[in-house]
Structure formats: C-alpha cells, structure tokens
C-alpha cells in the first residue's frame, strides 16, 4: 500500500513548551487511521501541523510523496488535504449552501461541484432543507454535518477529522459515526480521525495510534489496540470521563 501521508520526527512547540515531540506516523492510500488519546495529548496540534495551520519545529510531512512542510494551509488544501477542524468552524455569516460551495473552492473540486453537492445532500438531507439559512443559526449537530459536508465537497484525497463528536448529544454522535463509516464504505476515502471516544474511533478504523503528552506511545491494528491491556485499563475501563 503506497503512503498517502507520511509524518516523520515531527516536533511542535508553543513558546518553549513541547506540544509534539518526535511524532512519526503514516497513512496508506485508502486507509482509515485514528489517533486517540487524552485531552491535551497534542492530537489537534498534530492535525493542524499536517494541514499547515501550526508551524512545525522539526521533522517532515510528506503528502503523496511530496514534502508539503513549507506550504501554506491553502496550498496543502489545494493539493487534496481536507481538514474538518475541531469545533466545526463553519462560516457563520454565510449560508449553508455557500459554506458547502466554498468546500469545493479548490480548482480540482470546482468543476465537480454539482455532483459533489448532490452526493453531500444525499448524505445529509437536513443540509438541503437548510440551504438558505445562515450556518451560524444551525444546531451543533447540524453544524458538524455541515463541516463534514464541506470537507467532502473538496473531493479530497485525505480527510482529516478532528473530534467530530465533540459537544454533541449521544444520538447525534451515533449518527455522525455511522455517516463516517458510510462515507468510508462508499468512497474508499483515506481518513485520519482524531477522537477522544476511543472505542468508537478504533472500531471504525483499520489502525490506530495512541498519543500521550505529545508522543506516540502505542501503535497497531484495530483489534490489537482494542485488546491491548493498557488501552483497556486507561480508555475502555475509564469510560467515566
């Protein structure tokens, strides 16, 4: 399996504090990989480093064999990395439809806008019925669907999902995870998912990494990780967050 994304020796620090230290990981073409770990482990920082929103101190980021470490976020997005950020970050003063259309702003996706839109609206019918509403007026769950839909509109090669379950009720979370599984089934899209909900995330994924205080402490296939004693003790037993 050829590597879609290859991160090696990544280090990021904020004002002298190491947020990430020597993180290496790879995501193969068509693979679904998840990064789990506690709050503050550096999961979000890692995704931001991959999409270019955070300055990297050391290490390399290769996307489809190309070193993208020096490129702006917009350039990386243009190459086919779609980042669905933590906290959804929809454009509140734009309509739902405008938000979706901006998802396909990159040149490679713009020509396929109509078909992407049709597919996204089929996946999230509620967005179609809210098309003319301002994105800021949607509920949290709807905003998450919009953020996901906006990411899919980019027809990305690599989809980065940061905590899609954050701050949502259990039924919506279930719906979101089901949709992610469906997207995965339909398109064989390469996905890198960051989650605090360890079980759900690992069950969806092919492989996973466990990140703690900025370091990869454990890596392996889904079943191996789910069976791992440390993962069971810390995350599966400790569900009472």
């Amino acid at each position, binding site marked *: 399996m050829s590597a879609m994304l290859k991160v090696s020796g990544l280090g990021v620090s904020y004002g002298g504090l190491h947020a990430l230290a020597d993180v290496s990981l790879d995501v193969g073409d068509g693979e679904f990989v998840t990064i789990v770990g506690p709050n503050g482990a550096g999961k979000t920082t890692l995704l931001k480093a991959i*999409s270019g929103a955070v300055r990297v101190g050391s290490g390399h980021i290769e996307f489809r064999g190309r070193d993208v470490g020096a490129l702006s976020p*917009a350039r990386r997005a243009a190459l086919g990395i779609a980042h669905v950020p933590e906290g959804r970050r929809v454009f509140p003063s734009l309509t739902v439809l405008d938000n979706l*259309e901006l998802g396909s*702003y990159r040149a490679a996706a713009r020509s396929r806008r109509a078909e992407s839109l049709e597919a996204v609206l089929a996946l999230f019918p509620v967005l179609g019925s809210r098309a003319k509403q301002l994105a800021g007026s949607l509920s949290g769950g709807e905003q998450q669907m919009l953020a996901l839909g*906006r990411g899919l509109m980019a027809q990305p090669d690599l989809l980065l999902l940061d905590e899609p379950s954050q701050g949502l009720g259990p039924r919506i979370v279930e719906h979101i995870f089901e949709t992610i599984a469906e997207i995965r089934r339909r398109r064989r899209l390469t996905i890198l998912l960051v989650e605090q909900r360890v079980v759900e995330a690992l069950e969806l994924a092919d492989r996973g990494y466990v990140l703690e205080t900025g370091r990869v402490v454990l890596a392996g296939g889904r079943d191996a990780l789910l069976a791992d004693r440390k993962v069971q003790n810390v995350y599966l037993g400790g569900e009472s967050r």
Partner: protein
Amino acid sequence: MIVADLVQYVVTGLLVGGVYALMSIGLALIFGVMRVVNFAQGDFMMLGMYLTYWLAIGYGVDPLLGALLTIPPFFVLGLVVHRLLLVHVTGRGDPQREMDAQLILTLGLSLIITNAVTMLLSPEPRGIKTAYATQAFVVGPILVNQARSYAFAMALLLAVVVYVFLTRTDLGKALRAAADDPEAAGYQAIDVRTMHGVAFGIGIALVAAAGGLLATYYPIEPTVAVNFIVLMFVAVVLGGLGSIPGAFIGGIVIGLVQSLTLLVLPFQLQNVGVFVAFLLVLYLRPQGLFGQRVRTV
C-alpha cells in the same frame, strides 16, 4: 412651507449620504477581512479626486466616468500597498502588537500621502467645472442638485455591484469566509493573504471612486481627507464593525443627520449632529445598527 424645507434637507442628506456610504463600504471591507483600521482611507479618496480631476482637465473625461476609471488603477495600487507594506503587519503573530504596528503604518501612510500631494501639487484647492454641477432638477418646491443626483446614482450602482460580487461569486464568498474565520478558510484552499490583498485593493478602489464622485461637487485639496475620514469611521461603527450593509446604511444615516442638523445649527457645526447621533447609537446599541455579535480583534 416647513414641510417642503424638511423634504429638501432629507433629499440633500440622502444624496450626500450615498457617496458617504460608498466610501464607508471600502473601509468596512478592509476592516472586516483584514481587521486593519485603515487611517489612510481618506487619503486614497483624495488621490481618487485628483486622478478624476486630472482626467477631466487633461483629457476632458467627465468626472462621473473618471470616477469609474479610478477603480482599476486603485485596485492595483491597493494590491501593491498590501504586498509591500501591510503584509508585514498582518497575520504574523501577537495581535495586540500587530494592531499597534498597523495603526502606525496606516497613520504614517496618511501623513506621507497628504504631505507629498501638498508638496507636488500645491495646497491650493481645485474644482472640476461641469455643466450639471450648478443645475438642479425641480420637483415641485424641491430643488435637487444634478451633480449630487448623478453621484448618488453612481454610488448606489457601485454599492449594488459590490453586494452582488460578495454574495454571488466564489471570490466574494471566499472574502467573506476569510473574514469569518481565516483558519477555516485556509482549510478550504482559500489563501488568506491573497484575500487580504483583494480586500485592500477593492477597499481602496471604492473609496477612490467615491472621491471621484465627490469631486463633481466638492473642492479638491490635499487635506480633504480629514473632512471625511471621521465620517467614514462613524459610518462603519454605526453600521456595526465590518458589516458591509451596515456601513452602507451608516453612510446614508450620516448624510441625513448632517443635512438635518442644518435645520437647527449653522453650517460650520453640521458635524455636531453626526457626533450626537453617533454617541446616542453607541449608548443605546453598542454593537452598531447591524452588528450581530461582538467580535474580539
């Protein structure tokens, strides 16, 4: 008779307000997208007046057309000023320190432009003579100055074009997205730095065009900016910082208030009314007329 007077002042205020509205849209666009308060906005307006004057005197171009012709060169000038200067004080780090740097930069730019024009073109006021400047449409008991009517119509037209651009085109929507959330805009392949350049270019072009329209009835001199920059700021704050429709309404309101003030105060004090209205709005509705939520810079 008093009713006719009132209508006369309202009409005059509306007409002047249209041009204020166009100026203010430019400032609001720059602030909305870049979060930069451009103190040199009035000076770009003054340069637009001079370019229109030069086209009129040198080539016989009607100032209403001249105002339109200022748009392309000032858009390019805006891109260049952004690329050479503003890029160094936007989106690079500590916002508080950047704000100080932006203030010093745009204020310095304003001083340099005013003084350079004074030196090169002399401080002497100039005017463009047009047939319609001294003509009026007569509507019953009301006289409507033709130059101001045409300027108003053009300002309205340009404002509509900007509105359509911002709400109907990909580039316009990308500009608004960059204003809403620069980080998320980056994730959609929208280059925020390019958007800053485009916003500054359009903002400068609009205020230059407004200057050109103003030049059909207002004397042109190097220090003309000071008479308008404060009005623009008031309009933008009245409308709700960064809101384009808000800035438009703010501009119209200021024209009206300025004009109606003349009913009770002498001409020299016409801006007193503007500031009283401004303080009232800030007191009663601090987020501005169209400001929906507080945005921290």
